[in-house]
């Protein structure tokens, strides 16, 4: 008898490769069956309908014109944008002083670039933004050290759009924190007032709010107190932004779970320190995507101030296009203004997507 030894040899089955991705060649996707072919042809026909507009904007367009009368062709008059660029971008700001709004735009860009990474967010950055806003406002106003004083009625164009967006969001943010906390509070009076404020502001159109700010605010203040038009529209935009931001923040607070607050209370952490150090940082982090969304909405909404006669980018462009020397280049002007808004808003959207990817990567370890 030979002794038999058995051994169990386990060999792991190598993981099977995933099934090959169904990669159909492009022409099959486009013309594979009758339906795809019909959709392809339909889409091409739709695009072809835009060709006359494209021809108008490129081939037929007048790009350079020594005099306004040279712009009489069948196409777009882009020469007008070149000739009026200063007016559209800077409004009625004195031409010799236009390095100041340019500097303001540059500071805004620099500050935005400096605060892109979430790593630098914090109290110090907020202080830096506060300082930058002060520097921008003093630069725009002037009236010191040989700089000519420029009243806000002469401000216009791009800096006004940027300042209104940045300032309304900056002022609205603390207000919205108070409103969101108030709405979540156990105190009935605080809760009631917050709900009343938020729901009324969200229930009326921004146009109504701008009218109230432009027409009624002077009535509400004692005689002799005056706020200029730009300040009044800024107040309306701030109140508007605060109500919408508060709702976004409320989402973050509700998503937090009661455990965080209860743990903090069990540890004996005082209320405000708990809010400041535990609740808000987590709540805000949760709602970064909708917060950037609100920022896009606010940038777009600053265009409404044109209705009450503030010369933002849209108002300045509209004023420029009324020049009777040129052949009514409204379409070209609005296309240019829309492109400027698009680059700002699309930039914020791309940034938000980048941020969200970062957050997702971190939460997956």
């Amino acid at each position, binding site marked *: 008898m030979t002794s038999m030894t058995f051994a169990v040899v386990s060999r792991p089955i190598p993981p099977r490769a995933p099934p090959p991705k169904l990669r159909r060649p*492009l022409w099959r*996707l*486009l013309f594979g069956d009758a339906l*795809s072919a019909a*959709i*392809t042809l339909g*889409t*091409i026909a*739709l*695009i072809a309908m835009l060709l006359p507009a494209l021809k*108008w904007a490129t081939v037929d367009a007048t790009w350079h014109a020594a005099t306004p009368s040279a712009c009489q062709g069948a196409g777009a008059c882009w020469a007008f944008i070149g000739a009026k660029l200063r007016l559209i971008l800077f409004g009625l700001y004195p031409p010799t002083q236009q390095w100041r709004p340019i500097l303001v735009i540059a500071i805004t860009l620099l500050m935005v670039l400096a605060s892109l990474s979430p790593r630098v967010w914090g109290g110090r950055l907020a202080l830096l933004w506060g300082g930058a806003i002060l520097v921008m406002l003093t630069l725009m106003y002037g009236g010191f050290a040989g700089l000519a004083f420029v009243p806000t009625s002469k401000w216009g164009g791009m800096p006004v759009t940027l300042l209104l967006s940045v300032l309304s969001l900056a002022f609205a943010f603390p207000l919205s924190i108070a409103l969101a906390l108030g709405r979540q509070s*156990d*105190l*009935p*009076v*605080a809760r009631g*007032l917050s709900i009343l404020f938020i729901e*009324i502001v*969200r*229930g*009326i*159109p*921004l*146009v*109504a709010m701008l*009218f*109230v700010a432009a*027409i*009624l605010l*002077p*009535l*509400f*203040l*004692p*005689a002799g107190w005056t706020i200029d038009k730009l300040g009044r529209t800024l107040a309306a935009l701030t109140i508007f932004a605060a109500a919408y931001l508060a709702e976004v923040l409320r989402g973050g607070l509700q998503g937090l779970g009661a455990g965080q607050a209860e743990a903090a209370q069990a540890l004996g952490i005082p209320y405000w320190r708990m809010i400041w150090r535990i609740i808000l940082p987590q709540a805000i982090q949760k709602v970064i995507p909708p917060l950037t969304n609100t920022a*896009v909405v606010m940038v*777009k*909404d600053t*265009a*409404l101030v*044109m*209705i009450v006669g503030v010369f933002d980018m*849209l108002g300045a462009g*509209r004023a420029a296009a009324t020049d009777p020397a040129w052949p*009514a280049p*409204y*379409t070209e*002007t*609005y*296309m240019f*203004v*829309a492109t400027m*808004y*698009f680059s700002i*808003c*699309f930039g914020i*959207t791309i940034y938000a997507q980048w941020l969200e990817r970062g957050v997702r990567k971190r939460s997956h370890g």
Partner: protein
Amino acid sequence: MRRLWYDARVRGWAIQAFLLIGVLGAALWIAQNTMMNLEARGIRVGLGFLARPTEFPISESLLPYRTGDSYGWAYVVGVGNTLWISVLAIVFSTLLGLLVALARRSAHPLLSAVAAVYVTLLRNMPLIVQLLFWYAVITTNMPSARRALHPLPGVYLSQRGIYLPSISAAAFCEILIAAAVAGLAMRGVLRHRRVTRGTLPAVGAAVVAGITAVATIAPKPHIPHLVGFNFEGGMALSPEFAALMIGLVLYTSTFIGEIIRGGIDAIARGQWEAARALGLPERELLSRIILPQALRVILPPLGSQYLSTVKNTTLALAVGFPDLALVINTVINQSGQALENLALMIAIYLSISLAISALINWYNAHVAIVVR
């Protein structure tokens, strides 16, 4: 004293008392300032002006209006216009939004790319700029009425606006009633489900009778035709109305499209796969499994999108279409009663908003999953 300060309840009452006093004090202060300012400017507050005759025209309206009607009636006309363009914008942008969502979800690379560009482009530009753009395109880039563009039979595009073939209101009602009767009849037939040999000829006869009836009753549409320097007949959309509608519908459709797409994407893949594994036909898969679930995700954001669409109609005043906001703006300039008019404006828009959100909440509760 120290114990009182650390008593949460006492502190809560103290904070609330301070809040209340602060808010009431601010309100009183504003009221007092307003009264003094009004007195100093010699403005009398009151709603008496609503009965006075107006001195301004309203360029187009759903309800009849003439210069000289009362301010109150001008308000009613403004509200009518606002509701009219809101309903139109909501209906058309929902339909277009559905198409946009389907296009973005489609496996067809060209179609989904075109839809993505469309959505990205229009979402990131302010609505007011888009409205002004369309108004400028119509009034400055379109040819004169004599050389109007003629893209489809009976449709003319010119500086004077857009002209479409139309039918009279009575004929429209007839067609609506005929369609409703036909629909009910079809439903009655389908209810029986069992289409036997005996019913088939009857259905066939009914269809033939219906078609002949429609063909004989059907009125000839009014086709616009050029007379002198302008068109006559058909339906005329003013440049203001056309620009407002085009801009509002295109802009809103991108948001609705994304909402619908998000709702369908939110349904787990397993639901599709399970339904297919059970052998459910594709049409029932959509109508019985996916859409009812997607609808619950879609409805709340869709409702708030409808709300903001109603508020966005106030931008009509940028292109000069006489919605409520433009009417009120004119009334303020004519009557000088800014305080009352703006209060009315806020009250009206608030009530419209509250009514819509009540409707949405009711419908949400209606379709919500009942948790037992």
